[in-house]
Protein backbone atom coordinates (compact mmCIF):
# COMPACT_ATOMS: atom_id res chain seq x y z
CA UNK A 1 0.00 0.00 0.00
CA UNK A 2 1.20 3.50 -0.75
CA UNK A 3 2.08 5.22 2.55
CA UNK A 4 2.28 8.73 1.18
CA UNK A 5 -1.44 9.58 1.35
CA UNK A 6 -1.61 8.41 4.95
CA UNK A 7 1.45 10.34 6.01
CA UNK A 8 0.21 13.37 4.16
CA UNK A 9 -3.16 13.16 5.88
CA UNK A 10 -1.54 12.91 9.30
CA UNK A 11 0.71 15.83 8.52
CA UNK A 12 -2.24 17.94 7.40
CA UNK A 13 -4.12 17.06 10.58
CA UNK A 14 -1.19 18.19 12.67
CA UNK A 15 -0.74 21.37 10.70
CA UNK A 16 -4.44 22.22 10.84
CA UNK A 17 -4.36 22.12 14.61
CA UNK A 18 -1.02 23.76 15.06
CA UNK A 19 -0.60 26.09 17.99
CA UNK A 20 -0.44 29.83 17.65
CA UNK A 21 2.86 31.25 18.65
CA UNK A 22 3.70 34.61 20.06
CA UNK A 23 5.34 36.92 17.64
CA UNK A 24 8.48 38.76 18.60
CA UNK A 25 7.73 42.24 19.78
CA UNK A 26 9.73 44.94 18.14
CA UNK A 27 10.58 48.17 19.87
CA UNK A 28 8.67 51.24 19.01
CA UNK A 29 10.79 54.26 18.30
CA UNK A 30 8.01 56.70 19.11
CA UNK A 31 7.85 55.65 22.72
CA UNK A 32 10.93 57.46 23.96
CA UNK A 33 10.11 60.78 25.57
CA UNK A 34 12.39 63.78 25.58
CA UNK A 35 13.52 66.43 23.24
CA UNK A 36 15.00 65.68 19.90
CA UNK A 37 18.72 65.76 20.24
CA UNK A 38 21.06 67.32 17.75
CA UNK A 39 24.35 66.38 19.31
CA UNK A 40 25.35 63.92 16.67
CA UNK A 41 25.14 60.20 16.21
CA UNK A 42 25.50 58.10 19.31
CA UNK A 43 27.47 54.92 18.72
CA UNK A 44 27.00 51.68 20.55
CA UNK A 45 30.60 51.78 21.72
CA UNK A 46 30.03 55.19 23.27
CA UNK A 47 27.02 53.79 25.06
CA UNK A 48 28.95 50.77 26.32
CA UNK A 49 31.82 52.95 27.53
CA UNK A 50 29.43 55.24 29.32
CA UNK A 51 27.56 52.31 30.85
CA UNK A 52 30.76 50.74 32.19
CA UNK A 53 31.62 53.95 34.01
CA UNK A 54 28.28 54.12 35.77
CA UNK A 55 27.90 52.99 39.36
CA UNK A 56 26.35 49.57 39.24
CA UNK A 57 22.94 50.05 40.73
CA UNK A 58 21.74 46.56 39.97
CA UNK A 59 24.50 43.98 39.63
CA UNK A 60 22.00 41.28 38.64
CA UNK A 61 21.04 42.96 35.39
CA UNK A 62 22.92 42.14 32.24
CA UNK A 63 22.39 44.14 29.12
CA UNK A 64 21.67 42.30 25.91
CA UNK A 65 24.10 44.32 23.82
CA UNK A 66 23.88 41.87 20.93
CA UNK A 67 20.30 42.93 20.30
CA UNK A 68 20.82 46.64 20.79
CA UNK A 69 19.04 48.76 18.21
CA UNK A 70 19.80 52.25 17.05
CA UNK A 71 16.65 54.28 16.59
CA UNK A 72 16.84 57.44 14.47
CA UNK A 73 15.54 60.57 16.14
CA UNK A 74 15.84 63.74 14.19
CA UNK A 75 19.44 64.19 13.17
CA UNK A 76 20.56 62.05 16.09
CA UNK A 77 19.62 58.64 17.44
CA UNK A 78 19.18 56.69 20.59
CA UNK A 79 19.82 53.08 21.51
CA UNK A 80 17.36 50.56 22.81
CA UNK A 81 18.87 47.59 24.62
CA UNK A 82 16.73 44.68 25.82
CA UNK A 83 16.85 43.80 29.48
CA UNK A 84 15.86 40.60 31.23
CA UNK A 85 12.64 40.39 33.22
CA UNK A 86 9.01 40.93 32.48
CA UNK A 87 6.56 43.32 34.12
CA UNK A 88 3.33 42.06 35.62
CA UNK A 89 0.06 43.88 35.15
CA UNK A 90 -3.22 42.69 36.64
CA UNK A 91 -1.48 39.57 37.83
CA UNK A 92 -0.36 38.59 34.34
CA UNK A 93 3.21 38.61 33.11
CA UNK A 94 3.19 40.69 30.00
CA UNK A 95 5.22 43.17 28.04
CA UNK A 96 8.95 43.57 27.98
CA UNK A 97 11.75 45.72 29.26
CA UNK A 98 14.38 47.84 27.58
CA UNK A 99 16.87 50.51 28.43
CA UNK A 100 17.12 53.59 26.26
CA UNK A 101 20.44 55.41 25.95
CA UNK A 102 20.25 58.91 24.58
CA UNK A 103 21.87 62.30 24.77
CA UNK A 104 20.23 65.05 26.73
CA UNK A 105 20.16 68.69 25.70
CA UNK A 106 23.71 69.20 26.97
CA UNK A 107 25.04 66.29 24.90
CA UNK A 108 25.59 64.03 27.90
CA UNK A 109 24.49 60.43 27.70
CA UNK A 110 21.65 59.43 29.95
CA UNK A 111 19.71 56.21 30.29
CA UNK A 112 16.10 55.45 30.97
CA UNK A 113 14.58 52.11 31.83
CA UNK A 114 11.37 51.36 29.98
CA UNK A 115 8.69 48.91 30.96
CA UNK A 116 6.63 48.49 27.81
CA UNK A 117 3.31 46.74 28.32
CA UNK A 118 1.19 46.35 25.21
CA UNK A 119 -2.50 45.98 25.84
CA UNK A 120 -3.10 42.24 26.05
CA UNK A 121 -6.07 42.18 23.71
CA UNK A 122 -4.27 44.39 21.19
CA UNK A 123 -1.24 42.14 21.29
CA UNK A 124 -3.35 39.02 20.90
CA UNK A 125 -5.04 40.52 17.90
CA UNK A 126 -2.01 42.03 16.16
CA UNK A 127 0.68 39.55 17.13
CA UNK A 128 3.38 42.26 17.24
CA UNK A 129 3.83 45.82 18.30
CA UNK A 130 4.06 48.55 15.71
CA UNK A 131 4.40 52.29 16.04
CA UNK A 132 1.36 52.98 13.93
CA UNK A 133 -1.14 51.29 16.18
CA UNK A 134 0.60 50.68 19.48
CA UNK A 135 -1.91 50.30 22.28
CA UNK A 136 -0.65 49.95 25.80
CA UNK A 137 1.45 51.58 28.47
CA UNK A 138 5.07 52.66 28.69
CA UNK A 139 6.62 53.30 32.10
CA UNK A 140 9.84 55.32 32.26
CA UNK A 141 12.34 55.00 35.11
CA UNK A 142 15.60 56.68 35.91
CA UNK A 143 18.75 54.82 36.96
CA UNK A 144 17.60 54.78 40.55
CA UNK A 145 14.46 52.87 39.59
CA UNK A 146 12.28 55.84 40.31
CA UNK A 147 9.24 56.12 38.13
CA UNK A 148 9.57 59.36 36.22
CA UNK A 149 6.61 59.27 33.91
CA UNK A 150 4.80 57.19 31.40
CA UNK A 151 2.40 57.27 28.53
CA UNK A 152 -0.72 55.50 27.51
CA UNK A 153 -1.20 54.84 23.83
CA UNK A 154 -4.26 53.83 21.90
CA UNK A 155 -3.92 53.02 18.23
CA UNK A 156 -0.54 54.69 18.07
CA UNK A 157 -1.74 57.95 19.58
CA UNK A 158 -1.09 59.13 23.07
CA UNK A 159 -4.34 58.86 25.00
CA UNK A 160 -3.07 59.46 28.50
CA UNK A 161 -0.11 59.90 30.72
CA UNK A 162 1.33 58.24 33.78
CA UNK A 163 3.05 59.76 36.77
CA UNK A 164 4.08 58.49 40.19
CA UNK A 165 1.17 58.31 42.56
CA UNK A 166 0.99 61.06 45.10
CA UNK A 167 -1.47 59.15 47.19
CA UNK A 168 -4.25 61.47 46.21
CA UNK A 169 -7.14 60.02 44.33
CA UNK A 170 -8.30 63.02 42.40
CA UNK A 171 -6.13 65.29 40.34
CA UNK A 172 -8.78 66.85 38.21
CA UNK A 173 -8.31 70.28 39.80
CA UNK A 174 -5.02 70.61 38.01
CA UNK A 175 -6.36 69.68 34.64
CA UNK A 176 -7.45 72.03 31.96
CA UNK A 177 -9.78 69.56 30.34
CA UNK A 178 -11.59 68.53 33.45
CA UNK A 179 -14.62 67.18 31.72
CA UNK A 180 -12.63 64.94 29.37
CA UNK A 181 -9.72 63.64 31.43
CA UNK A 182 -9.71 61.42 34.44
CA UNK A 183 -6.92 60.48 36.79
CA UNK A 184 -6.98 57.31 38.76
CA UNK A 185 -4.48 55.31 40.73
CA UNK A 186 -3.36 51.91 39.61
CA UNK A 187 -0.45 49.56 40.08
CA UNK A 188 1.69 46.98 38.41
CA UNK A 189 4.70 44.89 39.32
CA UNK A 190 7.88 45.75 37.51
CA UNK A 191 10.35 43.20 36.23
CA UNK A 192 12.21 43.27 39.53
CA UNK A 193 9.05 42.24 41.36
CA UNK A 194 8.53 45.66 42.89
CA UNK A 195 4.97 46.88 43.15
CA UNK A 196 4.71 50.27 41.47
CA UNK A 197 1.84 52.55 42.36
CA UNK A 198 1.13 55.14 39.74
CA UNK A 199 -1.51 57.56 38.62
CA UNK A 200 -2.70 57.57 35.08
CA UNK A 201 -4.68 60.08 33.17
CA UNK A 202 -6.77 59.03 30.25
CA UNK A 203 -8.31 61.69 28.09
CA UNK A 204 -11.00 61.95 25.52
CA UNK A 205 -11.32 65.19 23.65
CA UNK A 206 -14.86 66.32 23.05
CA UNK A 207 -13.83 68.34 20.04
CA UNK A 208 -13.08 65.08 18.32
CA UNK A 209 -15.83 62.99 19.78
CA UNK A 210 -19.07 64.62 20.74
CA UNK A 211 -21.09 62.51 23.10
CA UNK A 212 -18.11 60.45 24.14
CA UNK A 213 -18.82 56.79 24.57
CA UNK A 214 -15.97 54.43 25.34
CA UNK A 215 -17.18 51.94 22.79
CA UNK A 216 -18.50 54.13 20.06
CA UNK A 217 -16.16 57.05 19.96
CA UNK A 218 -14.32 57.68 16.77
CA UNK A 219 -11.99 60.46 17.70
CA UNK A 220 -8.31 60.16 18.41
CA UNK A 221 -8.83 60.54 22.10
CA UNK A 222 -11.43 57.88 22.47
CA UNK A 223 -11.11 54.20 23.08
CA UNK A 224 -12.51 51.02 21.87
CA UNK A 225 -14.26 49.22 19.12
CA UNK A 226 -17.97 48.88 18.55
CA UNK A 227 -19.20 45.84 20.36
CA UNK A 228 -19.71 42.84 18.14
CA UNK A 229 -22.96 40.92 18.13
CA UNK A 230 -21.24 37.64 18.77
CA UNK A 231 -19.10 37.71 21.89
CA UNK A 232 -17.14 34.74 20.65
CA UNK A 233 -16.16 36.23 17.32
CA UNK A 234 -12.52 37.31 17.25
CA UNK A 235 -12.16 41.06 17.40
CA UNK A 236 -9.76 43.64 18.65
CA UNK A 237 -9.62 44.73 22.21
CA UNK A 238 -8.50 48.09 23.39
CA UNK A 239 -6.37 49.80 25.88
CA UNK A 240 -7.27 51.50 29.04
CA UNK A 241 -7.39 50.16 32.49
CA UNK A 242 -8.38 46.64 33.39
CA UNK A 243 -11.35 46.43 35.67
CA UNK A 244 -11.32 44.47 38.86
CA UNK A 245 -12.42 40.84 38.54
CA UNK A 246 -15.91 40.06 39.65
CA UNK A 247 -16.97 36.86 41.29
CA UNK A 248 -20.39 35.97 40.02
CA UNK A 249 -21.53 32.55 41.18
CA UNK A 250 -20.69 29.62 38.99
CA UNK A 251 -18.85 31.57 36.34
CA UNK A 252 -15.64 29.72 36.65
CA UNK A 253 -16.98 26.24 37.16
CA UNK A 254 -15.41 26.03 40.57
CA UNK A 255 -17.16 24.00 43.18
CA UNK A 256 -19.90 25.71 45.07
CA UNK A 257 -21.07 25.50 48.63
CA UNK A 258 -24.29 23.54 48.11
CA UNK A 259 -25.59 24.54 51.52
CA UNK A 260 -25.43 28.20 50.63
CA UNK A 261 -27.48 27.38 47.53
CA UNK A 262 -30.08 25.33 49.40
CA UNK A 263 -30.35 27.90 52.20
CA UNK A 264 -31.99 30.26 49.73
CA UNK A 265 -35.18 28.23 49.87
CA UNK A 266 -35.52 29.19 53.51
CA UNK A 267 -36.25 32.75 52.44
CA UNK A 268 -39.66 31.63 51.19
CA UNK A 269 -42.25 30.11 53.54
CA UNK A 270 -43.13 26.44 53.13
CA UNK A 271 -46.83 27.05 53.64
CA UNK A 272 -48.38 28.31 50.46
CA UNK A 273 -45.33 27.59 48.32
CA UNK A 274 -45.28 25.35 45.28
CA UNK A 275 -42.24 23.11 45.16
CA UNK A 276 -40.95 21.07 42.25
CA UNK A 277 -38.01 18.79 41.63
CA UNK A 278 -36.75 18.48 38.07
CA UNK A 279 -34.21 15.96 36.86
CA UNK A 280 -32.31 16.99 33.75
CA UNK A 281 -30.43 14.52 31.60
CA UNK A 282 -27.88 15.36 28.97
CA UNK A 283 -27.75 12.14 27.01
CA UNK A 284 -24.45 10.91 25.61
CA UNK A 285 -26.06 10.38 22.22
CA UNK A 286 -29.40 12.22 22.30
CA UNK A 287 -32.28 9.95 21.38
CA UNK A 288 -30.11 6.88 21.16
CA UNK A 289 -29.59 4.21 23.81
CA UNK A 290 -25.82 4.58 23.85
CA UNK A 291 -23.88 5.34 26.99
CA UNK A 292 -21.20 7.28 25.20
CA UNK A 293 -21.51 9.62 22.26
CA UNK A 294 -21.02 13.20 21.11
CA UNK A 295 -21.75 14.37 24.66
CA UNK A 296 -19.20 11.90 25.97
CA UNK A 297 -20.80 10.06 28.90
CA UNK A 298 -23.53 12.66 29.44
CA UNK A 299 -24.69 14.18 32.67
CA UNK A 300 -27.57 14.13 35.14
CA UNK A 301 -28.47 17.24 37.13
CA UNK A 302 -31.16 18.08 39.63
CA UNK A 303 -33.17 21.28 39.85
CA UNK A 304 -35.20 22.52 42.78
CA UNK A 305 -37.77 25.26 42.41
CA UNK A 306 -39.80 26.92 45.13
CA UNK A 307 -42.42 29.48 44.23
CA UNK A 308 -44.38 31.68 46.58
CA UNK A 309 -46.73 34.45 45.52
CA UNK A 310 -45.01 34.85 42.19
CA UNK A 311 -41.54 34.87 43.69
CA UNK A 312 -39.52 31.90 42.53
CA UNK A 313 -36.14 30.46 43.45
CA UNK A 314 -34.50 27.82 41.25
CA UNK A 315 -31.24 26.03 41.91
CA UNK A 316 -29.83 23.50 39.45
CA UNK A 317 -26.78 21.58 40.56
CA UNK A 318 -24.76 18.52 39.61
CA UNK A 319 -22.37 16.08 41.24
CA UNK A 320 -18.79 15.92 39.91
CA UNK A 321 -15.36 14.57 40.74
CA UNK A 322 -12.99 17.21 42.04
CA UNK A 323 -10.15 15.98 39.84
CA UNK A 324 -8.89 15.79 36.29
CA UNK A 325 -7.57 13.05 34.04
CA UNK A 326 -7.75 9.49 35.19
CA UNK A 327 -8.23 10.68 38.78
CA UNK A 328 -11.77 11.56 37.76
CA UNK A 329 -12.65 7.89 38.04
CA UNK A 330 -12.48 8.02 41.81
CA UNK A 331 -12.02 11.33 43.56
CA UNK A 332 -13.39 13.66 46.21
CA UNK A 333 -16.71 15.04 45.09
CA UNK A 334 -17.83 18.56 44.38
CA UNK A 335 -21.12 20.19 43.54
CA UNK A 336 -21.24 22.54 40.57
CA UNK A 337 -23.81 25.07 39.53
CA UNK A 338 -25.56 23.63 36.48
CA UNK A 339 -27.21 26.76 35.16
CA UNK A 340 -27.06 26.95 31.36
CA UNK A 341 -26.86 23.19 31.06
CA UNK A 342 -28.14 21.90 27.76
CA UNK A 343 -30.33 18.88 28.44
CA UNK A 344 -32.13 16.44 26.16
CA UNK A 345 -34.82 15.07 28.45
CA UNK A 346 -36.20 16.04 31.83
CA UNK A 347 -38.78 14.84 34.29
CA UNK A 348 -40.51 16.99 36.89
CA UNK A 349 -42.25 16.19 40.17
CA UNK A 350 -44.39 18.35 42.39
CA UNK A 351 -43.51 17.62 45.99
CA UNK A 352 -44.64 18.62 49.44
CA UNK A 353 -42.45 20.72 51.70
CA UNK A 354 -41.10 17.85 53.79
CA UNK A 355 -39.91 15.98 50.67
CA UNK A 356 -38.46 19.13 49.19
CA UNK A 357 -36.58 19.96 52.34
CA UNK A 358 -35.18 16.44 52.65
CA UNK A 359 -33.84 16.63 49.11
CA UNK A 360 -32.37 20.07 49.76
CA UNK A 361 -30.79 18.72 52.92
CA UNK A 362 -29.26 15.80 51.01
CA UNK A 363 -27.77 18.16 48.43
CA UNK A 364 -26.47 20.46 51.17
CA UNK A 365 -24.37 17.64 52.53
CA UNK A 366 -23.47 15.49 49.54
CA UNK A 367 -21.45 12.25 49.65
CA UNK A 368 -17.75 12.93 49.95
CA UNK A 369 -16.57 10.68 47.17
CA UNK A 370 -17.28 10.46 43.48
CA UNK A 371 -16.74 7.18 41.68
CA UNK A 372 -17.41 6.89 37.97
CA UNK A 373 -18.77 3.37 38.35
CA UNK A 374 -20.31 3.13 41.79
CA UNK A 375 -21.34 6.70 42.62
CA UNK A 376 -21.54 9.20 39.80
CA UNK A 377 -23.78 12.15 38.92
CA UNK A 378 -26.74 9.87 38.19
CA UNK A 379 -26.41 7.95 41.46
CA UNK A 380 -26.38 11.27 43.28
CA UNK A 381 -29.59 12.51 41.66
CA UNK A 382 -31.34 9.17 42.11
CA UNK A 383 -30.41 9.13 45.80
CA UNK A 384 -31.40 12.76 46.29
CA UNK A 385 -34.82 12.04 44.82
CA UNK A 386 -35.11 8.89 46.88
CA UNK A 387 -34.70 10.86 50.11
CA UNK A 388 -37.71 12.88 49.04
CA UNK A 389 -39.77 9.80 48.23
CA UNK A 390 -39.34 10.09 44.48
CA UNK A 391 -38.54 6.96 42.46
CA UNK A 392 -36.96 7.90 39.19
CA UNK A 393 -37.25 5.71 36.08
CA UNK A 394 -34.64 2.98 35.82
CA UNK A 395 -31.20 4.52 35.42
CA UNK A 396 -29.23 1.29 35.25
CA UNK A 397 -27.38 0.45 32.09
CA UNK A 398 -24.23 -0.88 30.59
CA UNK A 399 -21.32 1.37 31.51
CA UNK A 400 -18.84 -0.33 29.21
CA UNK A 401 -15.72 -2.08 30.37
CA UNK A 402 -17.93 -4.98 31.54
CA UNK A 403 -19.57 -2.78 34.17
CA UNK A 404 -23.23 -2.15 34.92
CA UNK A 405 -24.41 0.87 36.86
CA UNK A 406 -26.38 4.07 36.81
CA UNK A 407 -25.64 6.22 33.80
CA UNK A 408 -27.23 9.29 32.19
CA UNK A 409 -27.82 7.39 28.96
CA UNK A 410 -29.97 4.76 30.66
CA UNK A 411 -31.94 7.32 32.68
CA UNK A 412 -32.51 9.37 29.54
CA UNK A 413 -33.79 6.35 27.65
CA UNK A 414 -36.14 5.44 30.48
CA UNK A 415 -37.57 8.95 30.56
CA UNK A 416 -38.03 8.83 26.79
CA UNK A 417 -39.89 5.55 27.15
CA UNK A 418 -42.42 7.28 29.39
CA UNK A 419 -43.08 9.66 26.54
CA UNK A 420 -44.23 13.23 26.57
CA UNK A 421 -46.57 13.18 29.52
CA UNK A 422 -47.40 16.01 31.83
CA UNK A 423 -44.20 15.83 33.80
CA UNK A 424 -41.69 14.79 31.15
CA UNK A 425 -39.97 16.75 28.45
CA UNK A 426 -38.27 14.85 25.65
CA UNK A 427 -37.72 17.88 23.48
CA UNK A 428 -34.83 19.12 25.55
CA UNK A 429 -33.82 22.64 26.39
CA UNK A 430 -31.45 24.63 28.52
CA UNK A 431 -31.60 25.12 32.23
CA UNK A 432 -31.93 28.75 33.07
CA UNK A 433 -29.90 30.82 35.43
CA UNK A 434 -29.92 29.57 38.97
CA UNK A 435 -30.46 31.85 41.92
CA UNK A 436 -26.97 31.30 43.24
CA UNK A 437 -25.81 31.25 46.84
CA UNK A 438 -27.43 32.94 49.80
CA UNK A 439 -25.40 33.89 52.81
Amino acid sequence: MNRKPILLTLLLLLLAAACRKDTTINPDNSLIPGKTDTSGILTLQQVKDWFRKQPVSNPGITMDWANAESIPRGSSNYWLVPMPGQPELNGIKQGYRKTAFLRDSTGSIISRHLDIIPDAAYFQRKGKVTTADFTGRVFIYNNNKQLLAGRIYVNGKQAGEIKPSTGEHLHTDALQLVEDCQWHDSSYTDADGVLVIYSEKICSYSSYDDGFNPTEGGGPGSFGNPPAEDPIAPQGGNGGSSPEPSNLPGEDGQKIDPKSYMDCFGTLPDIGSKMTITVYVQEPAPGLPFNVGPNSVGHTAIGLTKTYNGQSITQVVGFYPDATGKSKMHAPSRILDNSDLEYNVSIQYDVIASSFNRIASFISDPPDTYDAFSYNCTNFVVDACKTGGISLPDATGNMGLMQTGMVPGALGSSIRNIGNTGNTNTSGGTTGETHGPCN
Partner: protein
Amino acid sequence: MKTLIIILIAVVLLFNLTPLSYILKEDYTYSNYDMSFQFSEHGGAGYNFEMGRRRYKRFLEKNPEKAKTDRQLYRTFTIKPWRFWQWSDYLFSGERFKLPYKDTIGANK
Protein backbone atom coordinates in the same frame (compact mmCIF):
# COMPACT_ATOMS: atom_id res chain seq x y z
CA MET B 1 0.70 -2.68 6.52
CA LYS B 2 -3.05 -2.90 6.04
CA THR B 3 -3.40 -4.62 9.40
CA LEU B 4 -1.34 -1.93 11.08
CA ILE B 5 -3.51 0.82 9.63
CA ILE B 6 -6.67 -0.94 10.76
CA ILE B 7 -5.22 -1.30 14.26
CA LEU B 8 -4.24 2.37 14.35
CA ILE B 9 -7.69 3.47 13.24
CA ALA B 10 -9.27 1.16 15.81
CA VAL B 11 -7.10 2.63 18.55
CA VAL B 12 -7.98 6.17 17.54
CA LEU B 13 -11.69 5.33 17.47
CA LEU B 14 -11.42 3.52 20.79
CA PHE B 15 -9.81 6.48 22.48
CA ASN B 16 -12.17 9.01 20.92
CA LEU B 17 -15.53 7.29 21.02
CA THR B 18 -15.56 5.32 24.26
CA PRO B 19 -15.61 6.32 27.94
CA LEU B 20 -11.83 6.42 27.72
CA SER B 21 -12.24 9.86 26.20
CA TYR B 22 -14.00 11.02 29.39
CA ILE B 23 -10.93 10.06 31.37
CA LEU B 24 -8.29 11.32 29.01
CA LYS B 25 -9.70 14.48 27.52
CA GLU B 26 -8.46 17.79 28.78
CA ASP B 27 -10.79 20.12 30.64
CA TYR B 28 -10.59 23.02 28.21
CA THR B 29 -10.46 26.40 29.91
CA TYR B 30 -11.44 29.89 28.84
CA SER B 31 -11.36 33.44 30.10
CA ASN B 32 -11.98 36.96 29.03
CA TYR B 33 -9.23 39.55 28.74
CA ASP B 34 -8.90 40.51 32.39
CA MET B 35 -9.82 37.04 33.65
CA SER B 36 -12.87 38.36 35.45
CA PHE B 37 -14.75 35.62 33.62
CA GLN B 38 -13.35 32.12 33.65
CA PHE B 39 -14.86 28.86 32.59
CA SER B 40 -13.60 25.32 32.61
CA GLU B 41 -15.18 22.51 30.67
CA HIS B 42 -15.69 19.31 32.51
CA GLY B 43 -15.27 16.72 29.82
CA GLY B 44 -18.52 15.04 29.00
CA ALA B 45 -20.46 16.12 32.05
CA GLY B 46 -22.53 19.00 30.85
CA TYR B 47 -19.84 21.58 31.37
CA ASN B 48 -19.07 21.99 27.71
CA PHE B 49 -18.13 24.77 25.35
CA GLU B 50 -21.76 25.63 24.67
CA MET B 51 -22.37 26.17 28.36
CA GLY B 52 -19.32 28.40 28.47
CA ARG B 53 -20.65 30.46 25.58
CA ARG B 54 -24.01 30.90 27.23
CA ARG B 55 -22.45 31.90 30.51
CA TYR B 56 -20.13 34.37 28.88
CA LYS B 57 -23.02 35.92 27.01
CA ARG B 58 -24.91 36.35 30.26
CA PHE B 59 -21.78 37.66 31.93
CA LEU B 60 -21.52 40.37 29.28
CA GLU B 61 -25.17 41.22 29.72
CA LYS B 62 -24.62 41.63 33.44
CA ASN B 63 -21.40 43.55 32.99
CA PRO B 64 -22.09 46.01 30.19
CA GLU B 65 -18.93 47.95 30.97
CA LYS B 66 -16.86 44.90 30.05
CA ALA B 67 -18.99 44.27 26.99
CA LYS B 68 -18.08 47.74 25.82
CA THR B 69 -14.36 47.31 26.22
CA ASP B 70 -13.52 43.75 25.24
CA ARG B 71 -16.05 41.09 24.35
CA GLN B 72 -13.55 38.52 23.17
CA LEU B 73 -13.49 35.14 24.83
CA TYR B 74 -10.05 33.54 24.88
CA ARG B 75 -9.00 29.96 25.19
CA THR B 76 -6.47 29.51 27.96
CA PHE B 77 -5.46 26.03 26.92
CA THR B 78 -2.89 25.26 24.27
CA ILE B 79 -3.70 23.11 21.28
CA LYS B 80 -1.98 19.76 21.48
CA PRO B 81 -2.45 18.07 18.12
CA TRP B 82 -0.47 15.01 19.12
CA ARG B 83 -3.19 14.04 21.59
CA PHE B 84 -4.95 11.68 19.23
CA TRP B 85 -7.62 10.97 21.82
CA GLN B 86 -8.86 14.53 21.32
CA TRP B 87 -9.00 14.39 17.53
CA SER B 88 -12.77 13.98 17.61
CA ASP B 89 -12.96 17.38 19.28
CA TYR B 90 -10.91 18.95 16.51
CA LEU B 91 -13.13 17.26 13.97
CA PHE B 92 -16.62 17.67 15.39
CA SER B 93 -16.44 20.62 17.75
CA GLY B 94 -13.57 22.71 16.53
CA GLU B 95 -14.98 26.14 17.32
CA ARG B 96 -13.24 26.31 20.67
CA PHE B 97 -9.89 25.95 18.97
CA LYS B 98 -10.50 28.99 16.78
CA LEU B 99 -10.55 31.30 19.78
CA PRO B 100 -7.44 33.40 20.29
CA TYR B 101 -5.05 32.07 22.88
CA LYS B 102 -4.38 33.85 26.13
CA ASP B 103 -1.48 32.85 28.31
CA THR B 104 -2.35 32.66 31.99
CA ILE B 105 1.15 32.10 33.33
CA GLY B 106 1.62 34.32 36.31
CA ALA B 107 -2.05 35.16 36.50
CA ASN B 108 -3.64 35.41 39.88
CA LYS B 109 -6.50 33.02 39.66
